[in-house]
């Protein structure tokens, strides 16, 4: 164990013997990790964006005109308890009228249709947004539709499951595509790192040869190489992650305006762990295969 620590210390001191080669290797690792990170951030943001609208089903419910408003208000409160409820936007006949007037003339009020105030022909309506569970979606849809249609005073129910189709499609594709892409990219990152480290180790081949000539055992030669290889993978991808996080903080909100309303997402924990672990692991492997017997 003492020898192990001495070898690690030695390995770190050796870095100063050839600082530029080590720095260049580190820079290559960092840049590669950065590129992969940017790409993964884009994919994860896209996934998040599709996830936001995924599963959203919107019902528009029309009540018959003239139904007692107290009854309707009670029903609106009940609706909030439905499974998958997200939010609700309601219009009393009066609100609907004002909305309508607002659309017709900006600075007008009910003065436009004063005669209608007494005898409003508009129904009460509600726009209810649901984010139902993925499983049993069809059953949920029919159940919710019939529930809404059977509400007292309700005239008509229309739903817009259309937006959900993209979400549904993404959800099925997601599990087949997203994870493999993340895995694939981090694997590429790891392989490039491993190979970079391996090539950097070739510059040490003279030292390796001489150590072999003076009777060093295999592990004695390899341990410093593995430590350096692993450190380069770890430090390089950690630097890249810090850089990404810094940039992310700058650009997080730049697309967050209507109608895009897209918040740029940072890498999730799983991806961060992968982006640290695989380059480290393959850096170690690179340190191992960099030494030929």
């Amino acid at each position, binding site marked *: 164990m003492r020898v192990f620590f001495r070898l690690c210390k030695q390995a770190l001191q050796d870095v100063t013997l050839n600082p530029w080669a080590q720095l260049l290797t580190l820079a290559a690792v960092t840049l590669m990790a950065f590129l992969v990170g940017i790409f993964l951030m884009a994919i994860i943001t896209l996934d998040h964006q599709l996830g936001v609208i995924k599963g959203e089903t919107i019902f528009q419910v029309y009540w018959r005109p003239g139904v007692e408003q107290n009854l309707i208000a009670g029903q609106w409160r009940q609706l909030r308890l439905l499974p998958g409820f997200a939010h609700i936007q309601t219009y009393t006949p009066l609100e609907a009228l004002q909305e309508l007037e607002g659309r017709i003339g900006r600075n007008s009020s009910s003065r436009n249709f004063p005669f209608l105030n007494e005898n409003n022909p508009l129904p009460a309506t509600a726009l209810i947004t649901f984010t139902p569970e993925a499983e049993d979606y069809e059953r949920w849809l029919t159940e919710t539709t019939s529930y809404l249609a059977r509400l007292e005073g309700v005239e008509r129910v229309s739903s817009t499951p259309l937006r959900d189709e993209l979400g549904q499609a993404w959800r099925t594709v997601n599990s087949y595509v997203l994870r493999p892409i993340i895995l694939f990219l981090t694997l590429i990152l790891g392989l490039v790192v491993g190979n970079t480290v391996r090539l950097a180790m070739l510059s040490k081949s003279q030292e390796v040869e001489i150590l072999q000539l003076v009777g060093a055992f295999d592990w004695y030669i390899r341990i410093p190489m593995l430590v350096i290889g692993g450190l380069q993978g770890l430090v390089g991808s950690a630097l890249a992650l810090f850089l990404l996080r810094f940039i992310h903080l700058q650009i997080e909100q730049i697309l967050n305006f209507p109608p895009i309303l897209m918040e740029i997402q940072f890498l999730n924990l799983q991806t961060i762990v992968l982006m640290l672990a695989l380059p480290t692991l393959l850096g170690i492997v690179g340190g191992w295969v960099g030494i030929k*017997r």
Partner: protein
Amino acid sequence: MIDVRHLSHSFGPHPALQDCSFHLSRGEVLFLTGPSGAGKSTLLRLLFADLPLQRGEAVVAGFPLSKIRAAQVPLLRRQVSMVFQDFKILPLRTVYDNIVLPLQVRGMDKTHADRRVLAAARAVELENKLESSCVDISGGEQQRVAVARALVVNPRILLADEPTGNMDPELALQIMDIFKKFQNYGTTLIIATHSPELILRNPRARILRLDQGMITQANWPGAILNKFSSAVPLAAYGGGARHDSTEERDG
């Protein structure tokens, strides 16, 4: 200590060593001579397990080299030191770092190792250059670093390939005297050299002459002459054959 039987080696179709046989006991010194390209370095590298054995057998410090496993090579090299014709030192490191390397590899603690390094450096007159980087010293000094690195571990066997080739004659003789001291303590030596003065300096030495990979002359019966060999004894180099009695000591 060293037992070589029908050893041959070729690089591709080109034979570098052909059917060499000889035996050396503990504390004996052998000079290898012969023209450039005769196979001296090839023979030494074979004995150091730096080249794989192709034909024949060589037993060095108890290791039969035809059967040695890669994991055993370090064990062999902890008994056998070699001074390479091209030194094989680390140019970016200091003289001290180079000489201490075999001791570090063996896990020796620093104070003990420092004392040994200083003694070895004194023997080759490098004690004032210990902190110099090896790129900043002369060829002769680099060669002395290689010699000190080989001696610092007190090897049982020392293989030296032109160990004094880049030194002035005075220093070369001084190195030979150091080798002789090691010989007196029981180290077995094989020294490849072109220089007759060095050989004459050690009248008890065994001498082998290689020509195109074949032993053509030897000055003691322990070397088995083959069909290529000349019958002419190496009278010119003095009579090493007087000391055959040392052979019986070997185990």
